[in-house]
């Protein structure tokens, strides 16, 4: 039971890491390798707000979200839209966006280094035990799990109930046909990309309450997010959540019952397994 809860809490963290990328990749078709830098930047923001003005990260996220939204909207409009327009096919867009966002991630690291320096930033926020069903867990992890549930829930409802949400899902499923039924693909892609960035940055702010970050750590989170998104199925909120939870539980089970040294190896084996038996991901649609 203890293992299960620890795993689910970790899964919540992974959902926060991956959800933004899922929107960006699933809808805007940009495999954003700079995603981790946005996450670290969100964490930086929370760190600075907390250490200089004692502003709680729970409140900081309401500042981080709109800022990250605008920033990512601009990034999409200025940097990525030209690539989308230029690409003759899906493959070329993939290559171009990998290269461009890889460059962006370097720029992100460089900017954070020159503004904040390369030191670790870590602070203690709600590092107190919470008791659940007879075992203790970090309050900050529980908090971030609750936030993950809220964010994922809100996204899910929005995507399934609202008109723009439905249009976004239409783009994710069939971009060419979506255009035919009068959906403004460009506008909504930018929206989805910006929203993904905002979710990622908020995730970063929450994660910084219990993980130690520095300017160069973004790539670690990008990798994890990519694996979760691919495993869950591109463009599917449920898939990402399930994959994140599975991964969290698997890592905790391996760490607790087998050997913590094998957690990451087990995660990659599971990733490989999923790809071998369901190449489109757990919830993905078959490629056409």
């Amino acid at each position, binding site marked *: 039971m203890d293992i299960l809860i620890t795993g689910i809490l970790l899964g919540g963290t992974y959902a926060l890491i991956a959800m933004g990328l899922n929107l960006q990749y699933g809808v805007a078709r940009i*495999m954003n390798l700079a995603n981790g830098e946005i996450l670290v930047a969100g964490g930086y923001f929370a760190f600075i707000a907390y250490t200089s003005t004692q502003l709680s990260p729970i409140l900081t996220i309401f500042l981080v979200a709109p800022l990250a939204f605008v920033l990512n909207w601009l990034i999409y409009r200025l*940097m990525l839209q*030209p*690539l989308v327009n*230029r690409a003759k096919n*899906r*493959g070329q867009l*993939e*290559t*171009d966006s*990998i*290269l*461009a966002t*890889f*460059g*962006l*991630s*370097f*720029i*992100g*690291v*460089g*900017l954070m*280094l*020159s503004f904040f320096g390369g030191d670790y930033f870590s602070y203690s926020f709600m590092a107190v035990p919470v008791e659940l069903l007879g075992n203790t867990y970090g309050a900050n992890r529980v908090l971030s799990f609750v936030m993950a549930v809220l964010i994922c829930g809100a996204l899910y409802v929005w995507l399934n109930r609202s008109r723009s949400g439905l249009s976004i899902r239409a783009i994710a499923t069939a971009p060419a046909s979506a255009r035919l039924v009068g959906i403004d693909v460009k506008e909504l892609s930018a929206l989805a990309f910006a929203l993904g960035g905002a979710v990622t940055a908020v995730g970063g702010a929450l994660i910084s309450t219990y993980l130690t970050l520095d300017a160069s750590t973004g*790539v670690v989170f990008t*990798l994890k997010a*990519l*694996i979760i998104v*691919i495993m869950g199925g*591109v463009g599917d909120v449920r898939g990402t959540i399930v994959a994140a939870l599975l991964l969290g539980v698997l890592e905790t089970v391996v760490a607790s019952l087998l*050997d913590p*040294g*094998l957690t*990451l*190896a087990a995660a*990659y*084996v599971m*990733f*490989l397994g999923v*790809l*071998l038996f369901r*190449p489109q991901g757990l919830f993905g649609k078959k*490629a056409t």
Partner: protein
Amino acid sequence: MKLTGRDIRNLVLAAVAFAICALLPLGDSGYWLGLGVTVAMFTTLATSWALFSGPTHYISLATAAFFGVGTYVTGLGIELLPFWALVGLAGVIGAVLAALVGLATLRLSGVYFVIFTLGLAELVRQVITWVQNNTGQKGLYVLTDLDEAGIYWWLLGLAAAVFLMGWLIGRSRLGFALRIIGDDETVAAHSGINTALAKVMLFMVPGAVAAMTGAILAPRYVYIEPSLAFAPILSFQVVIMALLGGASRLWGPLVGVIPFTFLLETVSSNFPNQTTLVIGIAFLVIVYFLPNGFVGLLDKLLNTIKAREGA
């Protein structure tokens, strides 16, 4: 196999070019030789990468995985076996590993393959460090008498082998089959080409070459740490350089590697505090203004010249 006069001329020219390159350590044993090692290393890696990715359009980010395996082969075996045997062994292990990975993943398409190969370096690294940890291995020190010039010649030899192999593949049935696969996989399958086998065989080339490169470079690093041997950045650098040059020609990656190495060198010597920032910007410039790499640029220029001459 028939060699035309043109083929012979090209071969002779290439041999002369390699011979000239091989003279570099006699001229300078310091800075320029160091850059020479870097260029030779990336030429080898990027060219072998393009041999597979050029025709198949699969972007493989597995270079770091094979490279790391190679450094570990040397690191673990340096006291047991002679160096040349380790390089060979690394090549065999790299090829076998690549075959396994290829069999498992090459039916994945596009982005799934990209992400899988990216995770592969991490997986291999985790397994190796776990084994190292549980067998009580101490740190791996590679103390040899191999100096920079020796490493350079080894790499150059490997590069020559890669070019020769690429040239032979291009002339073989395999190369022909691959070009068809690259154009249209369905057509290829219908015309009786075993697409899976062709792709797996070709994937073994960059796997073996990257492992051998790692094995050759291990003495240069002296101390083998998993986080350095399997650094994912290497995979990206190779992709960037190959694409900057152009993966469609055998010599394409070479025209990417040389300017990119000099660019990185200029950036890191002139902007020590903003190295990553400037590299990032350089990256974007390349993506936006050189979409088809230098090969594309050259083709365009040649076409313009031809058009002018025709007019």
